[in-house]
């Protein structure tokens, strides 16, 4: 019973996660079937147009389907399909929303907040969209693109670049593509830029996080015999060498960092591996946002996260500004939302070769800035 009890929860609900998937798809209107409160947060977080039925108490008492039909009909005049995203209260009252949407160009996504976390909601949204693979679609799908991710634009650009280098066409982008294209069908195979947001579409060939790139390229070469993976591998080797050079230089002056990593399990594992590979760093705290993974427990209670960080006394935190603010003694690099430490407008990757380099460069600069600040 105590499992749900939580202080300052650091991760969004299933409805928000589902919304992040649907809102990334162009040519699809997203309608939140709920109150203004449920609308307000994803709207301010994702910064994309969303619609809402703005349910009132009276509608909960007398039924919400009339209001839902009214708003869907209004939106349908724009001749675009509507994704209806259900929220906690209409889900609890158990109305037949599917029936209300019969004969309408709409898809119902039942992802109330109490269902779980953002990733579970995202997966529910993908399942409801029912994206099928089509053997005639050439190329590889790019998966793991979520508007909730600090790096989604940079990751997408980098994945497209890497596939282009290998002469492999891009199938569909999940979830940053046109709805009409998604309906036509996805390619049979998929690579991911953030495996914590799996769509389940296509056969997964691996991730483009720097530490996984070589294995993923090998899988791509096996699946696409005409692909030329050598330019990417060559680039990877050069990047690896550059990163060792820069970290070696750092280690001539400074001791390896002691780091705490708090992020989705995919990025957390990536960050830990990178820190260990290039710095020989100690990483005594690794906590996942979304689910328990091998050697990475999940924790979303900020007081418990901070307790673990404080006990370890790291000099570097890779996570969100939730952790950074709670433990200001360590220097900080944002790898999971929210990152309020900086103005961030550019498309920065964390995936791919450029993502790997950028990650290491940022870690180095963060550590050097902190050391320089301490000296002053």
């Amino acid at each position: 019973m105590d499992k749900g009890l939580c202080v300052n929860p650091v991760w969004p609900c299933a409805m928000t996660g589902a919304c992040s998937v649907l809102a990334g798809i162009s040519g699809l209107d997203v309608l939140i079937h709920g109150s203004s409160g449920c609308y307000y947060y994803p709207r301010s977080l994702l910064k994309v147009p969303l619609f809402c039925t703005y349910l009132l108490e009276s509608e909960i008492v007398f039924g919400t389907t009339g209001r839902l039909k009214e708003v869907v009909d209004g939106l349908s005049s724009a001749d675009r399909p509507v994704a209806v995203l259900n929220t906690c209260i209409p889900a609890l009252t158990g109305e037949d929303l599917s029936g209300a949407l019969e004969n309408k160009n709409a898809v119902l996504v039942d992802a109330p907040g109490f269902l779980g976390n953002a990733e579970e909601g995202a997966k529910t949204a993908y399942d409801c969209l029912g994206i099928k693979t089509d053997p005639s679609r050439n190329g590889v799908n790019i998966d793991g693109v979520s508007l909730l991710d600090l790096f989604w634009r940079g990751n997408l650009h980098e994945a497209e670049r890497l596939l282009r280098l290998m002469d492999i066409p891009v199938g569909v982008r999940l979830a940053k593509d046109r709805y009409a294209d998604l309906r036509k069908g996805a390619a049979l195979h998929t690579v991911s830029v953030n495996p914590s947001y799996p769509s389940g579409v296509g056969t997964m060939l691996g991730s483009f996080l720097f530490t996984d790139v070589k294995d993923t390229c090998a899988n791509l070469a096996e699946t696409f015999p005409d692909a030329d993976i050598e330019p990417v591998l060559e680039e990877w080797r050069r990047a690896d060498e550059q990163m060792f050079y820069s970290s070696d230089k750092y280690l001539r002056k400074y001791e390896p960092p002691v780091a705490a990593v708090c992020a989705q399990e995919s990025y957390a594992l990536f960050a830990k591996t990178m820190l260990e590979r290039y710095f020989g760093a100690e990483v005594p705290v690794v906590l996942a946002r979304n689910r328990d993974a091998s050697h990475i427990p999940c924790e979303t209670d900020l007081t418990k996260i901070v307790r673990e960080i404080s006990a370890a006394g790291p000099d570097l935190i890779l996570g969100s500004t939730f952790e950074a603010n709670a433990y200001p003694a360590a220097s900080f690099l944002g790898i999971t939302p929210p990152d309020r430490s900086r103005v961030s407008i550019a498309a920065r990757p964390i995936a791919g070769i450029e993502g790997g380099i950028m990650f290491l460069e940022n870690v180095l600069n963060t550590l050097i800035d902190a050391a320089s600040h301490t000296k002053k």
Partner: protein
Amino acid sequence: MGGCTLTGALSVACFIPGAVTVVHAPKGCAHQTFSMLHALMNEAETRIVPEILVSGLSDKDVIFGGEDCLRQALDRAAEKKPELIIVVTSCVPETIGDDCLAVCREHPYAERTLYIPTSGFLGGSAKDGENAALIGLSALAEPADPVPGTVGIIGEKNLESEVEENFAEVQRLLDLLGLTVSVRFCRNAAVSDLRKLGTVSCFILRDGRCADAGRELSRRFSRPVVSGFPRGLSGSVSFLQETGKACGLSAEKIESAVLQETKYQKKMLERFANLAGSRVCLGAEPFEGTLTAAREALACLDMTESPNGINVRLPFYLPVGVSGTVKMLYLWRRAILHG
């Protein structure tokens, strides 16, 4: 749209040091508000974020009932031995029929527990949540004799990024009248400070958004209420007059304050003298009252309004006093001089 009652109530309840706020809801509901508080605290360069303890209703709890979750949350909150536990609720426990009041009353910490039945959107909007919290928390204070020269600020928008700047502007004006703010209800005021609410000479509301709370406080403590922070330039003068009168100051004292304020405004507007003669288009009014404040500034600076003029955006907030007006004028100056 500014969220449901939960966000509104938490935006008040979370700013009471020494109190613990318990949210009876799924985790995601509390995360929304916590995340917003975090963002605003960062903007304000304040790293201290209030603790919100959430009962964390799951899909199983919504089927079998969530009262045990609330009990456990209260147990956890009571372990901290806070001066006050504030309990607010989302729409989920309301819908599944949890008797939250009974759980709070039966809890061993009941005497220091204040239940505010917000019920998420089923209780209304964020504004309703703010008013419910302000009214609920006012029960902490007993009616008392007024202390002359003191005022209480009611319903500051804790989620507003310029909340401290707005307060500073009001305080500047109150200084001209020789008045002191003894309670900021509820902005970083300890429970012991909130209990002093009954001692102030008058209440100054942030704006009409907390009018419901203002009416209730006025009735309960028999004090005059100033309806809002000053809007724009002339609003600052009328604020001085209204507040001075409400606090029973002499006509001479009020007139002296107005005179000082008029001189100050003239001096502040001098830095925008190079805008004289500009023709601007103000566009749509994002908040009621903004247009009036903007037109008044135009007139003071010998500027004119024209549909073909340079587009200057009205701010997405109501300019509070001279300080708010000056910030708006900086945006105009940028648009006029630099496109």
